[in-house]
């Protein structure tokens, strides 16, 4: 990536760490709403109404608006903010893990119905019914895709429409990953307009604005409600061939949820047509440009609309220390439970691998393959199996921790001099006693080093847990990336780094206590020659 300022470089590194390009469904960095505590749930008599949102600011705001509205109707509600991309949210909806999430008519038509049918609300509603999914009326605005350029740049090249782009094949395009791969996005657009653009790269939507401002790219995809259009003085190119379908904002919901919570849906119907494009752009601006929490933005909007009193109780941001403690607790839980499980499984596997060389090669190869799956992809694979939250994150971390521990256990045991093993056997010790009294103590330094590296890697990888709703230090990092809020990124990145250092230190201490002096600093196992 050519985006150059140091600040931006850091964001890019964080994104690369997240394995961003691996999976378009969650390509957009995501998180759970940062500061405030969860939406106040009424004393629940059953499972709460599960609302989710897609992983970008506007969807999170809409999710908050819906959550507050449902909550105001006296129904316990949970908001899985920024759950992921379209595919992920849709799968979660159809499988019943969530009850509703905001989406757009164009997206429903192209991404969910694969372009089959007509994009108006009534037709879509009929098409979704067989899936057990309902579609609300429009919230009141159309957030279509568009292409945008800096006004000065567009004016200089006299570009006003998308057709005009045909005259300028050398322009630098920076397009969001999702736009690049959607059939109603870049591929369709290129085909319809007959564009032959050479210089196209994928990057995060939020980074694209910065890229435009700093003149690293010329054209990007926009949403028409994006707050930055006005801030950055961007020209929205006219879709003169009418390629982009309508993207009316609507709520997708499970039809059975409507039966379970009729009051909630009555309240939600009141919301239809009440958010116009100006209101949405203003809310986006408050969240993205003024860095207000989405919940507060949503609560202010709901309050302004004269909804019932007491609604914005949930908008009060929690204390910062409390949030940090909570994230630390979440992060430590993710790391420690997954590591513990990995030790319990990997240690015996490593022992078996050392004792049976052929089986051992197989075990090491299989675990090595798991390690090659990009962490983000692995997390996404976990969702259909384990849902969202801490469990899929811990499972992924567990799988990642296996390799270093199995490999080091294996190496530590295999590295023991045969003479030492023979001496132990010749004493009349059983195989178990040899393992316990001689082999494992001799391999302990190496095994601990494996556990240590698994733990340290885990602390870093666990930040990705925020992408599947597991919380932890990843939450402020991804929110920070989404909101382009550098201090917020640091609120996650710094404690995560400190925790990694602390884990490293703790293991060094454990090594000092457990490993006998002669085996500590890289002495050969079994070697006794000193003179």
């Amino acid at each position, binding site marked *: 990536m050519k985006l150059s300022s140091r600040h931006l470089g850091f964001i890019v590194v964080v994104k690369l760490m997240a394995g961003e390009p691996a999976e378009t469904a969650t390509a957009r960095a995501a998180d759970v709403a940062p500061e405030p505590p969860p939406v106040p749930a009424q004393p629940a008599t059953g499972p709460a109404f599960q609302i989710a949102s897609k992983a970008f600011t506007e969807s999170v705001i809409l999710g908050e608006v819906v959550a507050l509205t449902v909550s105001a109707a006296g129904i316990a509600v949970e908001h899985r903010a920024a759950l992921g991309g379209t595919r992920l949210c849709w799968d979660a909806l159809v499988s019943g893990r969530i009850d509703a999430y905001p989406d757009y008519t164009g997206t429903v038509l192209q991404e969910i119905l694969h372009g089959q049918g007509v994009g108006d609300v009534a037709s879509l509603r009929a098409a979704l019914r067989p899936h057990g999914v309902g579609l609300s009326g429009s919230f009141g605005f159309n957030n279509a895709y568009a292409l945008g350029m800096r006004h000065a740049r567009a004016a200089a090249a006299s570009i006003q429409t998308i057709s005009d782009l045909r005259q300028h094949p050398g322009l630098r395009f920076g397009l969001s990953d999702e736009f690049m791969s959607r059939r109603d996005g870049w591929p369709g657009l290129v085909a319809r307009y007959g564009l032959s653009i050479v210089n196209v790269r994928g990057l995060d939507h939020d980074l694209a604005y910065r890229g435009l401002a700093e003149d690293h790219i010329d054209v990007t995809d926009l949403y028409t409600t994006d707050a930055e259009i006005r801030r950055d003085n961007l020209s929205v190119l006219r879709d003169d061939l009418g390629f982009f379908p309508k993207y009316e904002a609507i709520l997708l919901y499970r039809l059975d949820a409507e039966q379970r919570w009729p009051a909630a849906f009555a309240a939600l119907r009141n919301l239809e047509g009440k958010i116009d494009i100006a209101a949405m752009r203003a809310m986006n601006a408050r969240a993205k440009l003024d860095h207000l929490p989405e919940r507060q933005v949503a609560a202010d909007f709901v309050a302004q609309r004269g909804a019932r009193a007491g609604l914005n109780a949930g908008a009060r941001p929690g204390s910062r220390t409390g949030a940090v403690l909570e994230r630390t607790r979440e992060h430590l839980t993710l790391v420690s439970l997954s590591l513990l499980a990995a030790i319990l499984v990997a240690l015996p596997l490593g022992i078996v691998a050392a004792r049976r060389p052929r089986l051992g090669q197989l075990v090491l190869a299989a675990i090595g393959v798991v390690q090659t799956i990009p962490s983000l992809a692995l997390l996404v694979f976990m969702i259909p199996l384990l849902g969202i939250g801490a469990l899929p994150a811990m499972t992924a971390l567990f799988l990642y921790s296996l390799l270093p521990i199995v490999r080091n256990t294996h190496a530590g045991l295999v590295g023991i001099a045969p003479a030492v093993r023979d001496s132990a056997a010749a*004493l009349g010790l059983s195989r178990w006693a040899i393992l316990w009294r001689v082999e494992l103590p001799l391999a302990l330094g190496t095994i601990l080093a494996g556990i240590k590296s698994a733990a340290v890697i885990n602390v870093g990888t666990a930040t990705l847990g925020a992408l599947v709703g597991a919380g932890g230090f990843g939450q402020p990092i991804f929110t920070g990336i989404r909101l382009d809020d550098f201090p917020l990124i640091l609120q996650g990145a710094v404690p995560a780094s400190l925790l990694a250092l602390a884990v490293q230190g703790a293991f060094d201490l454990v090594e000092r206590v457990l490993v006998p002096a002669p085996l500590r600093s890289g002495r050969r196992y079994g070697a006794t020659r000193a003179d």
Partner: protein
Amino acid sequence: MMTNVAPLLQFVGASKTFEAVVAVAPLDLSVAPGDTLVLIGPSGCGKTTVLRMALGLLWPDAGQVRFRGELLSPANVQRARRSMGYVVQEGGLFPHLTAGQNVSLMARHLRWPRARIEQRQAELAALTRLPISALGRYPFQLSGGQRQRVGLMRALMLDPDLLLFDEPLGSIDPLVRAELQQDLVRVFQQTAKAVVLVTHDLSEAAFFARDQGQVALMRQGRVLQQGRVEELVRSPADPFITKFVAAQPLLAFGHAPEPQSK
């Protein structure tokens, strides 16, 4: 050799082949309590394989290895090994344990009372002339000779009937070596244990076998001749023995058996 006593260790046509290479051809061997048998021969002659079969670290392809009259098998080998003491080059000590912990490992595993362990350790330190202070050190902090003494203590800890040595003095410098040889022979005499010792050095073999001991000279998995050293020297049963003896110039200057057998 006291052939009228029931043998402690017995090989009955025991053989071992590694990937078509005969390590030990069918071998008959008998060691009675108190016997000393030195296996000697060039490297690769199969003498170490014999020792490993005696310990059940290897199993013969054919024939039998018997300990105290009982056929050695995976089922009884652990118990049998506790009546054997095994010492290899450099003592084969566990690097993660101090000398004392090396010596007491098996006794601790068998849950001997602490006082008994300490008493036995003190006895053995005196017997093997190891300074008590050395027991607190790790193997890498000991000299080669001390490591060998610790290895001997460990082998003697459970008061075994049979001691098995595989090139015990192989990597020790000549001065310490002479001293250790003396000490080993003294320990053999004091403890009156059966000893099987492997070496490639005829003068060492002669030294260890000087009282009642026998020497078995091996080549390519076969025992060419077994008997007193002087028999091997005076009436070799095979031209190879003549060659082997001639190649060991130190015999004349070392602890030759002649003065005692005259």
